[in-house]
Each structure stands twice: as C-alpha cells, then as structure tokens.
C-alpha cells in the first residue's frame, strides 16, 4: 500500500517526518530521491511515525535507506528510549534476536582457490547444517551446558575449543551481552533451540566465500588487514528457534504489560513495557540469552568453516589465516550511553535491521581498530556484492551510532519464485562465477539477486550522508544457503 505521509526534504540524503497526531517526536529517513520513491511504495513510513508515538522516545524515530515494511517496527529502524520513562519492545528487536553477520579474512588469494570453490561449497554444505530440520549429530548439549551458552555466548564455544580468545575480542560486546539469566528463557524456547545451535537455518541466512574486489579507502582497509584479491568468508545467521520463541513469549507477556501500564498502541505488534518495570527487565534478560545463543551459533559455524577450508584446501590453520575481522548484531536492543543535547544519557537503543557503527576512538573497539572505527558488515544479495564500512562520528551524533544493515527486498518471496520459475538460477550464477548450493530449491529462487535492492545504492547513501564510510567491496565466489 503506497503511503501519502508528509515528508520534508532536509538535504540530498535526509527526509523529515514532521510531528503529527500522537507522534512524540519527528521521524528522520536517510534516503535519496530514488530510494524515497521505493520506500513510499509500502507502509514503512507510517511505521516510522508509529514508533515515534511510543513513550520516552529520545531524539528522532530513525530509518535507514534499506528500510522496508516490517511487523510493528519497520525493518531498518532505529529508536532510543529513556531508561526512566521509556520502554522496551520485543517487536522493536524482532523475532530473530541478534541476527547478525561476521566476516573472516584469510591469507589466501582468490586466484589460488577459484578451482576448488565447488568442492569447498559442497563440503561447507555438508559440514554446516542448513535448511529446515538439519543439525550436527556431534553437538549435543545438556540443560546445564545450554545455560552456559545463554549466559556466556561465544565465550562458551571458545571454552570448548571452538575458536580462540582473539575471536572474542572481535565480536560486538565480545560475543556476550551481560545480564542474561536463563531463568527467564522458557522451556519451549529451550526445546526449540536445543537442536538448532550450530545451524544456519533457512531464508536469507548464508555462508559465503568471496574476495575483496574493490578497495575504496586504502588506509582503512589496511587497518582492518584487508587487501584486494584476499579471500574472505561471511556468515549470516541468528538465534534460530530459541530467539523466535523468546520474542514470541515476551510479545505475549508485553501485550498484557502494555494494558497494565496503560500504553496506547497503534499496533499490537508494538507492545512494550516501561524500562523501569520487571516485565522489561525479564525481557531484556531473556533477549540477552537469545543474543548470546546467536553469538555462540556464529562462533560454532566459524569453527566448522575453518575445519572445512583446512580439509579441502589441505592447508594448516596458519596457512589459511582465517581471522575474525568482526561480528555485528543487526536485531538487538542495547543499553548504551549517548550524548543528547550536551548531556550523557543512558538509553535503550533498538536496532531492528540496523547495525551499530561506532566511530574511531570509541572505548568499545578492539585496540587495533581504535584509529579506524568499528567495522560494519553489509551483506548484499548472493549474485552481486557485500560491503565493509566503518562507523563515524556523524553516526554517533545523529543515529545513536547506527547505520544500514543490508539490501532489503524489493520483491516478495512468491513474486521472486514466479520470476525465477523455469530459469536455471544456479546455472545463471555459475556463469557469473558464483557457485551456490541451497537446502531447498525454493530458497534459491526466493533469494534471486533481483529480489533485492542493489546494496550499492543503500551503502552509497549512508556513505554520502556520513553515517558510515565505505572501505571495501566483497564479491562472492561460493555460497551455501539455508
């Protein structure tokens, strides 16, 4: 449904939604003219306005250029709430809590491994459970071990030999969001998560072997130890059924809380609770557990990626040099301190389909990235490219240190299936030098490149608006899909 909501152009990349009706603040959308025309085709701007109606919102209700219609909150939305009179909303995080991306760099050159890509992809597909219902038979966790995963996140995986301490230093929050109490995670969530730790899942999740195709900023690339031609691996997945169930459980609980605390909801999916309430404390604790499950999930998958590459390429760990560049969340609520009109304030920042993008000298960065800023990983569709950016001061000032998260779909899944019907999609991609293996034929058809916006358009907007800085572009060579 196209929207007729009023927007005012502030500059080439910023659009304001004036305060209207029950809105407590303005909305701000990062887009250019062309992107704005696409955004107006769905109801996502109304969703930006709806979020602006929620109690205790601080600053503006923000939308990244990859914004699209979500349930309740738009996908590509950022909103911060005051810890005293604001709220937290499970719908503002989403079902796939801590869905995120990590990037590994290697000591290999694309030319060296190109011939082995099919074998590599087949081996990755075998070793990393993908699609509905698959799992690793050798990973069985006791209830006690699952508790440790929920509390420690990626740290649990490292303590069991899956990866190293250096990995942890290169993950947002060191791979563990504090305050996770497994008591607040339901038995149902545990049951759904039990067989799904260390699995990719279905939909848009993937593992992609690619290489650095273009370097935009030599100095920044060097700081991230990235150079042209270098082989990289991207992993995109989240908290699987455990996270979905945590979200589901707490939407139910917070629907009741919204009534109890008399919060007026424009849509049930926006249900929330005051940050000062016990309901919100319980949600944030369960959300931390689910986020930790996701960090652990990506850590386990990373371990199997390393094993698989060693195996197929017959190279030791040192020869491969598969080091973690960074790991970021793109569905999360975090308690952060931000400078608001000259005052440091503790806020609960919701990023739903948005990435943290902290600037150089942020205390939350590993030492070697102090000068360059936080790596921001923006995956595109499987046929084109993905980007590595770094965070900026402008992002910290304007968007609570946030930027875009990906391409965003332009076609619904069924529309994509229709477009793909009768075409040999796998073959088409192979002709472009990309070897793809998916669990279901349906998934590959739904994920055809033209079903997505060109991620270059999204990234160019955040780069020109200054809320992210382009460093390199990655090109896929081999992809496994859930």
């Amino acid at each position, binding site marked *: 449904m196209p929207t007729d909501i009023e927007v005012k152009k502030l500059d080439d990349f910023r659009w304001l939604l004036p305060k209207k009706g029950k809105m407590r603040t303005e909305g701000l959308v990062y887009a250019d003219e062309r992107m704005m025309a696409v955004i107006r085709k769905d109801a996502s701007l109304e969703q930006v306005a709806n979020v602006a109606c929620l109690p205790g919102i601080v600053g503006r209700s923000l939308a990244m250029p990859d914004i699209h219609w979500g349930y309740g909150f738009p996908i590509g939305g950022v909103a911060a709430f005051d810890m005293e009179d604001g709220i937290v909303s499970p719908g503002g995080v989403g079902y*796939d809590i801590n869905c995120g991306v990590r990037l590994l760099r290697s000591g290999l050159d694309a030319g060296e491994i190109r011939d082995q890509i099919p074998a590599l992809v087949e081996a990755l597909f075998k070793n990393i459970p993908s699609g509905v*219902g698959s799992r690793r038979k050798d990973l069985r966790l006791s209830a006690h071990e699952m508790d440790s995963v929920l509390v420690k996140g990626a740290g649990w995986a490292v303590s069991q030999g899956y990866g190293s301490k250096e990995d942890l230093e290169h993950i947002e929050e060191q791979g563990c969001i504090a305050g996770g109490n497994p008591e607040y995670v339901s038995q149902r969530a545990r049951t759904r998560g039990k067989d799904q730790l260390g699995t990719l899942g279905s939909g848009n999740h993937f593992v992609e072997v690619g290489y650095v195709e273009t370097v935009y900023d030599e100095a920044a690339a060097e700081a991230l130890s990235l150079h042209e031609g270098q082989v990289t691996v991207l992993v995109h997945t989240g908290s699987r*059924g455990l996270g979905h*169930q945590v979200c*589901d459980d707490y939407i139910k609980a917070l629907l009741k809380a919204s009534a109890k605390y008399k919060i007026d909801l424009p*849509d049930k999916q926006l249900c929330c609770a005051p940050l000062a309430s016990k309901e919100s404390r319980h949600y944030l604790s369960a959300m931390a557990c689910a986020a930790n499950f996701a960090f652990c999930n990506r850590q386990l998958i990373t371990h199997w990626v390393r094993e698989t590459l060693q195996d197929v390429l017959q190279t030791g760990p040192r020869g491969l040099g598969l080091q973690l560049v960074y790991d970021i969340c793109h569905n999360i609520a975090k308690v952060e301190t931000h400078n608001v009109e000259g005052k440091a304030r503790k806020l609960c920042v919701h990023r739903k389909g948005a990435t943290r993008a902290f600037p150089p000298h942020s205390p939350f960065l590993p030492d070697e990235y102090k000068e360059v800023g936080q790596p921001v990983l923006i995956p595109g569709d499987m046929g084109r490219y993905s980007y590595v950016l770094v965070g900026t001061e402008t992002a910290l000032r304007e968007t609570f240190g946030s930027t875009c998260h990906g391409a965003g779909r332009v076609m619904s899944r069924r529309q994509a299936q229709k477009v793909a019907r009768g075409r040999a999609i796998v073959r088409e991609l192979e002709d472009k030098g990309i070897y793809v293996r998916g669990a279901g034929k349906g998934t590959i058809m739904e994920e055809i490149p033209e079903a997505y916006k060109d991620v270059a358009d999204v990234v160019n907007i955040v780069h020109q608006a200054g809320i992210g800085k382009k460093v390199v572009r990655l090109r896929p060579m081999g992809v496994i899909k859930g």
Partner: protein
Amino acid sequence: MSKKYEFIEHTADLGLKAYGASIEELFVNAAEGFFDVIVSPKSVEEREERVIEVEAEALDELMVSWLSELLYIHDTEKLVFKCFEVKRLKGNQVEAIARGELLDPARHEIKTGIKAVTYHQLYVEESEGGWETQVIFDI
C-alpha cells in the same frame, strides 16, 4: 464457502487471509493455509496425530496462539500437518486434533520456513458471510 484461504504478500513477509462459515471452520482453514506456506499439502499423509489445547486473552490472540502452537510442534517434533479437527472452541480456548506425518526431506519439499506468527495487522472478524481472519508471518 468456496475459498478456504488465500496468501497475502508483502515484500519481506507473507500473510494469510482465511475464511470459514463457522469459527471452528475458520481455525481449521487458517491452519491448512499455514501449512500450505511451509509444504505442499498434497505430499503430506495422515500418519500421526497430536491433540492441541491453547488459550489466549482474546479471540484474535487465540488465532496467533493456535498457529504458534502448530509451529512449535512442527519445529520441535519435525511434523508437518495437513488435516485439522476443532473439537471445541469457547471462551478464547481451543481444543483440536492435527493430523500429518514426520517431515521427510525425500518426499516433502519445504516451500518456506516460518519463524513466527505475528500480531501485526491481525484480525478475526465475523461478517454476514461468516468468519474471516488475517495473520502475518515472519519468514
């Protein structure tokens, strides 16, 4: 009533409109539509059954709880269902039987995995012609 359900599409998500002459039929048709998103119903046989009992605060929320319960069983027991029988539906409680079988990747092609049933733009309404519901899924 001729049409049991139809899919509604958004760019990132997928939803369902279901119809029924009675509220019981509405719940049955919504469940059939729900599994038609996941797997082709023609390929599913009735070999297993599960008794389902759920309750909620309101009728529209009951629809979400009902489909969420089916999703939970699908996700944890790897079952796919095709046939549903509502035994009782009263006071925002539903008691039903779902029949289907274990997921077999050799015979069942998964169409789309569903992560969750949302409350977004949710309704369950009675009109002159019978009952109608709309539910949006996170996929």
